[in-house]
């Protein structure tokens, strides 16, 4: 009885406060009801066996009970679960959801209005000792914003929770795990900070400007952090007579990292990138989490042995352009890569590597489940696919006592589908986040961001007439990968990045004047064409123009 009364009071409070809470677009009518029961549904608890017919009770934002013999409480709003399957809310283990847009493109109609001018991503910390891109003190928690189309389209496919972090820079900052509803940033956060995020894309026009420099910078800053910690300890023991060390928020933010208290998520995809990340982590005794992980199956043994989990991208590579006769044939390596990427998850599961799924900057979220299905067809047991969306990310991200399964006491994040989650014809019927149903709407429009992915014909002019080379690009968020082939040589691009406003940069190894040289390309994308300059050490600069061979997907 006292419990009911207190709930009543909370309810009344909510009602009285309601007018003062700023109305959000997504949750126009907030409901005071906080007790729900989904009855007669199939329940995939993940933590235990599947309950073929049972009831899930939600109360006060938590799962109150779940089982075959559970009855709906009298005060609950009852949802008839006949023909429905209840899953723990799906977790997307790496996104940039809720982060301000990087591109200078203003939002049409001036919507939002939260910040007058959206700050660039990553956001630079005030008074930092480091340039933007090398600021480990950046907290995602400080910059997230509720609402928006991207959050909505993630919820539409059943995602309730997401790890969110910027994808640019080297020390990218500290991520947060957020629920995809809530009217304030504070209400969204489940856990923060979750991990330090590291990327290997060089800075532009300043040190480190190459992959080699990125490694040197990471090493130097971690060494500096060790010294910072030691110096501060010496000073705090007895400050008298010791010159005060300068405070440094960047280095202070790295102390939990080098002490292994905070995991480090590194964005790496190819076998050699993952190997390098593992080596760096061993060198500094870091708690590594691999993100991306396209070829992680090739180092599965080492990942399992060192207990390094993988946030596996479901942004599976695929051919995006039609073949044109003038383009060089695609290298065998590229053809293999696309086929083998579908098999990675299955192989990781077999090898006993812990992993979780992430959307990997998919521009069209509806592809996520299509790709999950593809991964299952290529060897991943369907039950493991469910785990990779639920309990496995919860464990990897340190929230397994709050999320990831349907158990009493856990946060009431639920994804309810008509039909099996991975069935081609299934659809998401209900999504509960923090115990509240979420409005599901048809996705607004298609993918919002244009992609550089595809095959380009690049005309390079180094002062002796044009040479045409073929460039294959894969864009994943702000990251760029790819390869060239043609008369100047063949090989993968490196140091590649794309910034807001379509500024593209990458380097390739060329054969010029009988010498192997590095050519740095810097250009701008406009009207489906990239134009810019080529610089080669010891040679006069040249120009290039890249046009698409075939149409973007």
């Amino acid at each position, binding site marked *: 009885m006292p419990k009911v009364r207190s709930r009543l009071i909370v309810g009344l409070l909510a009602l009285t406060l309601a007018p003062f809470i700023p109305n959000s677009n997504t949750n126009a009518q907030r409901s005071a009801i906080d007790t729900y029961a989904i009855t007669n549904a199939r329940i995939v608890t993940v933590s235990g066996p599947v309950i073929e017919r049972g009831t899930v009770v939600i109360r006060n934002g938590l799962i109150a009970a779940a089982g075959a013999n559970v009855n709906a409480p009298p005060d609950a709003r009852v949802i008839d679960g006949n023909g429905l399957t209840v899953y723990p809310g799906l977790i997307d283990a790496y996104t940039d959801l809720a982060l301000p847009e990087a591109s200078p493109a203003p939002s049409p109609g001036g919507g939002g209005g939260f910040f007058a001018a959206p700050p660039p991503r990553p956001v630079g910390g005030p008074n930092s000792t480091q340039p933007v891109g090398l600021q480990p003190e950046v907290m995602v928690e400080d910059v997230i914003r509720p609402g928006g189309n991207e959050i909505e389209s993630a919820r539409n496919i059943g995602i309730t929770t997401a790890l969110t972090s910027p994808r640019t820079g080297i020390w990218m900052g500290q991520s947060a795990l957020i629920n995809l509803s809530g009217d304030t940033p504070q209400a969204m956060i489940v856990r923060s900070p979750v991990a330090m995020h590291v990327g290997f894309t060089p800075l532009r026009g300043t040190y480190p400007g190459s992959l080699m420099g990125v490694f040197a910078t990471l090493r130097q800053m971690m060494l500096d952090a060790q010294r910072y910690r030691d110096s501060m300890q010496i000073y705090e023991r007895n400050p008298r007579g010791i010159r005060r060390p300068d405070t440094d928020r960047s280095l202070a933010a790295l102390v939990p990292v080098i002490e292994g208290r905070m995991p480090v998520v590194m964005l790496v995809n190819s076998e050699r990138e993952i190997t390098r990340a593992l080596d760096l982590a061993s060198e500094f005794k870091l708690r590594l989490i691999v993100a991306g992980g396209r070829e992680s199956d090739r180092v599965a043994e080492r990942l399992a042995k060192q207990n390094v989990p993988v946030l596996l991208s479901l942004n599976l590579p695929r051919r995006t352009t039609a073949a044109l006769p003038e383009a060089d044939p695609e290298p065998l390596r590229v053809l293999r890569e696309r086929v083998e990427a579908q098999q990675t998850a299955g192989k990781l599961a077999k090898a006993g590597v812990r992993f979780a799924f992430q959307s990997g900057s998919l521009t069209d979220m509806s592809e996520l489940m299509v790709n999950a299905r593809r991964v299952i067809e290529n060897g991943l047991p369907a039950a493991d696919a469910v785990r990779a969306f639920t309990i496995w990310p919860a464990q990897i991200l340190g929230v397994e006592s709050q999320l990831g399964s349907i158990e009493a006491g856990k946060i009431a994040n639920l994804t309810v589908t008509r039909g099996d989650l991975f069935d081609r014809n299934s659809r998401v019927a209900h999504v509960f986040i923090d115990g509240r149903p979420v409005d599901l709407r048809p996705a607004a429009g298609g993918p919002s961001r244009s992609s550089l992915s595809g095959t380009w014909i690049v005309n390079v002019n180094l002062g002796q007439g044009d040479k045409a080379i073929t460039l294959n690009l894969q864009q994943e968020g702000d990251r760029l990968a790819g390869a060239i082939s043609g008369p100047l040589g063949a090989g993968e691009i490196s140091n590649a990045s794309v910034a807001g406003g379509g500024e593209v940069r990458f380097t390739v190894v060329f054969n010029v004047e009988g010498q*192997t040289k590095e050519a740095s390309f810097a250009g701008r994308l406009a009207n489906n064409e990239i134009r810019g300059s080529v610089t080669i050490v010891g040679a006069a600069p040249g120009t290039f123009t890249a046009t698409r061979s075939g149409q973007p997907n």
Partner: protein
Amino acid sequence: MKRLIARSLLLSMFGMLPVSPARAQRQTSPETLIRNATVLTVTRGTLENTDVLLRNGKIAGVGKNLNASANARIIDGTGKFVMPGIIDCHSHSMLDTINEGTLAVTSMVRTEDVMNPTDVDLYRELAGGVTTLNLLHGSANPIGGLNTVVKIKYGRPASEFLFPGAMPGIKFALGENVKQSSRPNQPGVQRRYPNTRMGVEEVIRDAFTRARDYKRTWDEYRAAAGKNKDLMPPKRDLQLEPLVEILEGKRYVHAHCYIASEILMLINLADEFGFKIKTFQHALEGYKVAKEIAAHGAGASIFADSWGYKIEAYDAIPYNAAIMTRAGVVVSMNSDSDERARRLNIEAAKAMHWGGLTEEQALKLVTLNPAIQLGIQERVGSIEVGKDADIAIWNGHPFSVYSRVDTTFIDGVVYFDRQQDLARRPELAKERAALEQAEPNKPPAQGQSPQRPGRRRPSHEDGIEEEMPR
């Protein structure tokens, strides 16, 4: 269409061959006996009708009528030539990135961090009888990054490429590339210092002065830290640590240079700080200061006959190798090119034509001499009992343009075999055909290729662009 098929075949042949059934077997080193070949030992002359025995990754015997154990592989070497694996003292193969050019001193960066063991150039180099590479940072700055000496163990992880016991090294660079003389001034863009050869010298002198101070700071700290545990540790500086190693003689300097004056400048500067330059790379005017290079104890790693590609590369002669060799300089021929690296044998042969080096002297240019320049001469560079079994079998004398490599061994293991390569080509073509049919490799839209947009031309009437009819 035919052309497309031909090209795709070609690509599949030379495209990617790392994942082979041989991959798993390569770690063990089988015993191999090459019988009745002509052996170019480099140090002990040319031996006719001679056997070479490879066992446990080493050269176990060189002589007549050698015996091998029952399960050894026997190769008939009749009419073939056995040569030590070629060593390329200036390579950028397998590096994902070559230059960290943002700063004038980047001794903190390491080529070892960015090695790509799947680079197909490596396979092509094996096919040219090359077994060892000196992976150098580029020439964008006076003091560049750290180099890596590798054996081309194509198909193995990058960590297995590292040449055990090779001397650590670093790349320096002088002249036009460093002062960025071919880069035009851009309004509003600050040029990176230095812009002159004087500035290059100053940058190097400044760096070594800082390195000397750094070493002293640490020496003092270590001496005092025992007594006072409240002493603040100095900063560890990854930029200066390799320079301290140079001062202590623990790291080789490989300096990119062209003209005589800058070679002398660097010799004087090194003498001033008490360290040695191990090699002058390119050194196109080395012949002018050959005595001084020899007196300093430096080597030179050069091109046979490549010059004129920029102002500082004009005063070159093809007799460079011969003149310097006769002056007592240890000379090697390098590639600096993924393409030239496949035919370094011919580069060495040119020194017999230009300047009349002996066959043995010419062979040394791509074998023992680069080994000395990298501090690995006890392991490789000649065919002697006890050295690493890094050798190539050629179907003719390697100084003939008509000769090619049959088999290349590293540590006694086959890393290239021409017959195996030929046998695998149909298999790869089949794989390609199957992969093209796989779902993720299908073009997004079925049917015809999309139409390319027509060319645009400005309309003279109203200045509005309009579509040209196709």
